[in-house]
C-alpha cells in the first residue's frame, strides 16, 4: 500500500472538517473522493500536504508517518500536490512555471526532467516562452499538471482539475489523468464531476460531513445513495 490515512481528524484553526476518515491508495491506482460541498474532500488532500491542521489520526506514506515530515520533504518523498483553481504564476513564463515545480532538483537534472515532461505535454513545448497568464484555462491546467509531475512523484494529489473548464477540455484533462496513471503514478483525485471521475477511478470514496460513508470499486456507482444524491439518478 502506498498511502494509508487512519482515523484522520483535521481542519482549520479550531474548526474540524474531517472526523475520523480512513482512506487507502495502492500503487498505480486512481482513487477518487466524491461528495457534496463541505464534505471535506479537499481537506483530505490539504491534510496530507500539511496545509490543514491534523488533530488526530495518522497519515502513512511508503510506511513512513508523515506527521513530522516538512512539506519540502514530502516532495522529496514522492508526493506532489496540485491545488484547485489552476494555481499558476501568471507573470512567469510557461518554462519558468515548470522549473518552479522542481526546485528540489539540481539544475542539470531539472533541465532533463523538464525536457522529458515536455514530451508528455507537447502542447506546452510550443508555448514555453509565453507568459502563463495568456494561456487558456485548459492549457493552464495542463501546465499545473506538468509542473506537478516534474519531480517524478509516486503519488499525485489532484484537487478539482476540471473545475471551470468546458466539457471538451474536461475530457482532455481526464484522458491526461489516465495517461499519468499509465506512467505508474498513483493518483488521489478530488472531483466535483463525480460521474466523469468515477469512470476513470479504480476505487471510490464517498465523503459526507467529514466522514467516509461509502467506498468500493466502480460498482458503488450503482449504490442508491450515490445514485440519489450525487448522480441525480
Amino acid at each position, binding site marked *: 500500500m502506498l498511502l494509508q490515512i487512519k482515523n484522520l481528524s483535521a481542519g482549520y484553526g479550531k474548526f474540524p472538517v474531517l472526523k475520523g476518515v480512513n482512506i487507502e491508495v495502492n500503487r498505480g491506482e486512481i482513487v477518487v473522493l466524491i461528495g457534496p460541498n463541505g464534505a471535506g474532500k479537499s481537506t483530505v488532500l490539504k491534510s496530507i*500536504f500539511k*496545509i490543514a491542521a491534523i488533530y488526530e489520526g495518522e497519515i502513512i506514506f511508503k510506511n513512513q508517518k508523515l506527521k513530522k515530515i516538512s*512539506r*519540502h520533504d*514530502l*516532495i522529496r518523498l514522492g508526493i506532489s*500536490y*496540485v*491545488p484547485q483553481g489552476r*494555481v*499558476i*504564476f*501568471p*507573470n*512567469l513564463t510557461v518554462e*519558468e512555471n515548470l*522549473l*518552479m*515545480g522542481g*526546485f*528540489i532538483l539540481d*539544475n542539470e537534472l531539472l533541465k532533463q526532467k523538464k525536457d522529458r515532461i515536455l514530451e508528455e505535454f507537447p502542447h506546452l513545448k510550443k508555448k514555453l516562452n509565453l507568459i502563463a497568464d495568456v494561456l487558456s484555462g485548459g492549457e493552464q491546467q495542463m501546465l499545473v499538471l506538468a*509542473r506537478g509531475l516534474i519531480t517524478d512523484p509516486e503519488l499525485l494529489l489532484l484537487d478539482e482539475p476540471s473545475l471551470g473548464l468546458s466539457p471538451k477540455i474536461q475530457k482532455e484533462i481526464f484522458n491526461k489523468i489516465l495517461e499519468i496513471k499509465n506512467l505508474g503514478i498513483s493518483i488521489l483525485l478530488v472531483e466535483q464531476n463525480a460521474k466523469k471521475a468515477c469512470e476513470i477511478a479504480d476505487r471510490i470514496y464517498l465523503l459526507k460531513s467529514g466522514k467516509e460513508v461509502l467506498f468500493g470499486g466502480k460498482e458503488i456507482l450503482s449504490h442508491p445513495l450515490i445514485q440519489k444524491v450525487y448522480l441525480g439518478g
Partner: protein
Amino acid sequence: MEIFNYFFHLGIIFSIYSLLVLSSNLSLGYGGLFNLALPGLALIGAYTSSLLSLKTNLPFGVIFVITLILGYLVGWIISKITNKLRGDYLALVTFGFTFIVFTLALNWESLTRGALGLPSIPKPKFLFFQIESLIEIFIFYYLITFIVYLFLQKLIFSPLGRSIQALRDDELAISVLGRNPLRIKSLVLGISGLLSSLAGILYAHYLSYLDPYSFGLGDLIFILSALFLGGLADNRGALLGTFLLIIIPESLRFLPLPSYLVGALRQIIYSLIIIIILWFRPKGIFGKIDLS
C-alpha cells in the same frame, strides 16, 4: 570645470538613489512586497555609519560592513513582524516604521543631535585610500552601484530569483511546491534593507552632513515614481526611471522660477508622473507587471 562638478554631483546623486530604487524594485517589483520602510532603513544606515565614523576609531571598511549587516538584520526583523501582512497592510506598517525611525532621529538628541544634524561626517576611506575628490567619489559610488546591479541581475535570473517572483504571483502555489514563502520574504526584505542602508551610507559620507529629513516622504515618492516610470520587475527600468526623474526636475533650475517654487514643483512632477503612468502605461517603460 564647475559644470563638470555639477554633472559629477548629479551622477553621484543618481548612483545613491539608484540603490534605493533597485532595492524597492527587488521588494515591490519582483517580490510583490509593498515595502515603504526604505527611507527609514536608509536613515538607519546613514546614522549608524556616520555616528560610528564620528564617535569611534573603527576603520571605514569595518563600519561599512557593520552598517550593511545591521541594514539586513533590520529588514529581516521587519519581515518577521509583518510575516502575515501583504499589500496595503504591509505598506502601512512599513511606512509606520519609516516614521518611527524619523521620530527617533529627530528626538534622540543626545545621540543624533536631532534637527541640528550631524556635520563633518568624514569621506569614505578604505585602507590607505582616502576617497576625497568629486571624481573619486563618483567612480567609487558607480563601482558600488554597478556591483549591486550585477548582483541583483544574477539573483533574479537564478532559481531563487524565480521563487522571489513567484512569491509576488502566488504565495499558496509556492508553498505547495515545497518552498517556504516566509523565508523568501525575509530574504527579500533583508536584502532590501541592506541596499537601503548602503544608500544611506553613501549619502551621508558624500554630503558630510546628515539630519532626520535626509530621507523621508519626499524620497519615498521619488523612489516609487522612478520605479513606476521605469517599470516594475526590471532593473534596467529602475535605473532609467531614476535617471529621468533626476534629469527632468533638474531642468527646472534653468527656468526663471523663484527657488521656493522649485522644490514644490519637483514633488508635483513626481506625483504627476505616477498619475500619468497609472493612467496611460501601467507597466511603465520596461516593466513586466501591470500596476493596475
